[in-house]
């Protein structure tokens, strides 16, 4: 078998990844380039007795040595083991793409050019004569529409063909006119043995003043200084004669040549839709209209995804509930006095996973709208409009979308927020955005806030909600600035030089591909890992369990409850149908099952159907559940309902005991010596700890811990039985607003930064910050005897002032010389 190494190269957004996916299908492997956090995607496939390995290199505009991506890409291409370069070219943006191709020509490697997105080009009224271009450039050219898998076998065939006669497909189409003579002169001085790469390439790079190549020469070649001096002389000479520096001349020739090729192979061209784009931009980027339009777009994004998406979950929730009931039905039935571990475990797992799946409708809409904005071309405009504001805080215009998605106002989700940082060019701003995005208003925090607000701030609910949901923006900006001035200080920043491309009409296929890619990433990464964390949490809550003495008490309570039930129905005519324990057990399960199924439906027809099914299953039990006018059955029903209530209360008591005794409870207590300064007791601590898996659980845990013996949880109980003042409540809310992002977000941060270190940082700094803020509020508030509302307002003013002040500090700029 023949091994062929293929490198896939192209500019960002040229459809390179779709070609990669098309070639390698699902046999992909993602690793890291040594020492850097850039994905190395590779995949293999067999074709025609050859084993072909494809590497998907990072998208890049050029091959200078200034950014890590560019360095990696060019090193990989120049590597002598790399046999063939596939250059993906976006046919709808040909000249810009060919600029990169010209640089690839310099490297003297056998090349295949794939013209991707031919469909889009055609839509734009462009047609090309690729045969002609093939002749002109001396390389293999193929047409593809990767999204539709067109051109797949062509690529494979030409890989084999090019490999057979590599020299034939090395292009020498690019000559540097007046400079060529000089390049050739230097070429003669470079001895071939010390380099794997072509002498032509090295010579060109010397005239481009490429620091990495210069360093290399100094290292390997004993005559390096002589060569470099000579190059310098030639450069001066050239500048004198032609009045332009060699660096600029090289760029100029590349553009000219790209232009020449475009002109030569274009059969049909329509005036680019630039004019239409210009018209749109004169409104969208208008001095006065730009901000309102941006606001309107963000508002619509919110309204459609968060608000309507949330309404959609009303439809999808019953499906998830049904899924849960179905799964649980495969596990052992409940006992009268306890629920088997396995069944508890199944319930717990289904609850945890459903909590995340519940967001799917929202994400579906959100991802679609984001893809729409991306494909239309609005994203760079958004950055253009708001850059000035964000740059003061170490962020970037491109931070707008991630921040918006994570919940600037009403509540969003940090998961798509972190995902949206992916395309950011400025590495430092990208890190700053990613690390602060989780501070924004997570949708799942809202029920928690509502609960606390309803309990403590009935009068001032609106103002408090406003304060709590906007303070996070200022905290995020403040934190971002502080991080930029400290830990991120040495991170690479890139100039804000960004193309504002023409607007495009997106294709539905393109949009849907993006949506499903992202949904899939969410499901694959998040749900699996959250499931794993849920298992850990379950164990932490279950063990070591209840002490023997307590168990005895609970057992006797359970006995009591059954005795009471039997005494109250012993004269009943149906008594004999329930007197066996197994019968009672069956009925409990039957009843619970029936109730939960009925709860999931709102429409009368299905309800009737359910009734029928259950009636068929067990007519007698159905009668007990729905006695109607049957007097005896009604007595059973009444006694039974009482039993169910007592049983529920007992289970809750057992659960509380268990949690208090559990490893998680001990952890909650362990932190009390510190958290007491913020006014948190162990119950609050446990609620925070359990919210780590998914925020939703904090409300449930808090509810369970504070509800005492009441059947339904009322938010008042935390105020009346918790022993909290309104000041304590503010401390709790501030902590909740800042505490670590949920595990799902953390995983996304790990995926994007490819570093556990940053993930750990993203977990720990908000905890410290949240705790310090809570302690600050609680302590100062107590000293000054402030009410909760006062403390909140003063803290708000405090944060806003500091944020405004730090915005005046200039950002440290890392000058990169090489």
């Amino acid at each position, binding site marked *: 078998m023949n091994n062929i190494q293929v490198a896939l190269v192209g500019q960002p957004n040229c459809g390179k990844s779709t070609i990669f996916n098309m070639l390698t299908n699902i046999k992909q492997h993602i690793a890291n380039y040594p020492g850097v956090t850039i994905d190395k995607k590779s995949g293999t496939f067999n074709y025609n007795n050859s084993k072909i390995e494809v590497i998907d290199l990072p998208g890049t505009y050029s091959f200078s040595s200034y950014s890590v991506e560019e360095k990696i890409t060019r090193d990989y291409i120049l590597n002598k083991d790399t046999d063939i370069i596939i250059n993906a070219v976006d046919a709808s943006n040909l000249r*810009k793409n060919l*600029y990169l191709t010209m640089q690839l020509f310099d490297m003297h490697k056998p090349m295949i050019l794939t013209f991707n997105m031919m469909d889009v080009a055609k839509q734009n009224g462009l047609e090309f004569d690729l045969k002609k271009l093939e002749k002109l450039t001396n390389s293999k050219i193929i047409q593809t529409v990767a999204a539709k898998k067109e051109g797949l076998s062509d690529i494979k065939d030409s890989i084999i063909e090019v490999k057979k006669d590599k020299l034939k497909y090395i292009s020498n189409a690019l000559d540097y006119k007046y400079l060529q003579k000089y390049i050739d002169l230097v070429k003669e001085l470079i001895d071939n043995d010390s380099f794997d790469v072509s002498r032509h390439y090295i010579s060109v790079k010397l005239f481009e003043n490429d620091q990495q190549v210069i360093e290399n020469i100094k290292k390997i070649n004993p005559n390096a200084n002589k060569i470099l001096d000579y190059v310098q002389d030639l450069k001066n000479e050239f500048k004198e004669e032609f009045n332009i520096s060699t660096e600029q001349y090289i760029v100029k020739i590349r553009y000219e040549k790209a232009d020449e090729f475009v002109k030569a192979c274009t059969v049909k061209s329509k005036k680019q839709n630039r004019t239409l784009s210009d018209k749109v931009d004169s409104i969208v*980027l208008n001095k006065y209209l730009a901000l309102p339009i941006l606001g309107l777009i963000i508002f619509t994004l919110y309204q459609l995804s968060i608000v309507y998406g949330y309404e959609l979950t009303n439809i999808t929730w019953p499906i998830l509930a049904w899924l849960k009931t179905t799964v649980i039905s495969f596990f052992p039935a409940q006992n009268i006095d306890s629920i088997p571990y396995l069944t508890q475990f199944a319930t717990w797992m289904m609850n945890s996973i459903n909590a995340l799946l519940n967001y799917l409708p929202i994400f579906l809409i959100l991802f679609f709208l984001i893809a729409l904005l991306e494909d239309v071309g609005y994203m760079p405009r958004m950055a253009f409009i708001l850059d000035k*504001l964000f740059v003061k805080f170490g962020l970037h215009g491109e931070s707008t979308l991630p921040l918006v998605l994570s919940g600037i106002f009403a509540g969003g989700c940090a998961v798509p927020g972190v995902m949206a940082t992916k395309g950011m060019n400025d590495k430092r701003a990208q890190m700053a955005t990613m690390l602060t995005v989780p501070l924004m208003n997570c949708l799942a925090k809202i029920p928690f806030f509502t609960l606390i607000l309803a309990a403590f701030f009935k009068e001032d609910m609106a103002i408090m909600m406003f304060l709590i949901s906007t303070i996070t923006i200022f905290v995020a900006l403040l934190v971002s600035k502080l991080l930029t001035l400290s830990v991120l200080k040495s991170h690479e920043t890139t*100039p804000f030089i*960004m193309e504002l491309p023409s607007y495009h009409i997106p294709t539905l296929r393109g949009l849907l591909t993006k949506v499903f890619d992202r949904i899939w990433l969410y499901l694959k990464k998040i749900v699996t890992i959250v499931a794993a964390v849920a298992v850990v949490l379950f164990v932490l809550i279950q063990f070591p369990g209840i002490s023997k003495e307590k168990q005895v008490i609970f057992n006797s309570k359970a006995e009591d409850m059954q005795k009471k039930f039997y005494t109250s129905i012993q004269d009943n005519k149906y008594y004999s149908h329930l007197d066996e324990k197994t019968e009672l057990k069956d009925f409990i399960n039957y009843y619970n099952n029936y109730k939960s199924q009925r709860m999931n439906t709102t429409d009368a027809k299905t309800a009737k159907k359910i009734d029928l099914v259950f009636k068929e299953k067990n007519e007698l039990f159905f009668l007990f559940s729905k006695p109607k006018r049957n007097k005896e059955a009604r007595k059973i029903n009444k006694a039974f309902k009482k039993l169910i209530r007592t049983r529920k209360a007992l289970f809750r008591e057992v659960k509380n005991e268990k949690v208090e005794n559990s490893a998680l409870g001990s952890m909650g207590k362990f932190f009390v010596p510190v958290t007491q300064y913020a006014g948190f007791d162990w119950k609050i601590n446990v609620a925070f700890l359990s919210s780590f898996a998914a925020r939703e659980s904090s409300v449930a845990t808090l509810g369970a811990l504070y509800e005492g013996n009441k059947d339904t949880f009322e938010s008042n109980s935390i105020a009346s039985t918790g022993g909290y003042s309104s000041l304590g409540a503010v401390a709790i809310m501030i902590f909740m607003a800042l505490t670590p992002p949920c595990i799902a977000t953390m995983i996304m941060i790990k995926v994007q930064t490819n570093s556990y270190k940053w993930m750990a940082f993203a977990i720990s700094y908000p905890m410290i910050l949240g705790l310090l803020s809570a302690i600050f509020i609680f302590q100062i508030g107590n000293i000054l005897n402030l009410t909760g509302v006062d403390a909140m307002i003063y803290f708000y003013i405090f944060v806003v002032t500091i944020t405004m002040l730090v915005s005046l500090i200039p950002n440290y700029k890392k000058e990169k010389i090489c």
Partner: protein
Amino acid sequence: MTLDQIQINKTAIIKEINAQGMLLQKLYDMGFIEGNKIKMIRKSPLQDPIEVEILSYHISLRIQEAQSIKVSYE
């Protein structure tokens, strides 16, 4: 005069680029080379960054970066 001072809708010619390293390379890659024509399209609503047209592409850059490019009207 530097690039950021071109009046809106006016065209100028690049005379000199006083940048280094990555900024210079980025400018080159986007077509900012001496002798090329450049047209000011607009300023951002917050006055910074600016949008210019070069080689028929629309490029946005910050004023701070634009100040490293010397231009003159034809």
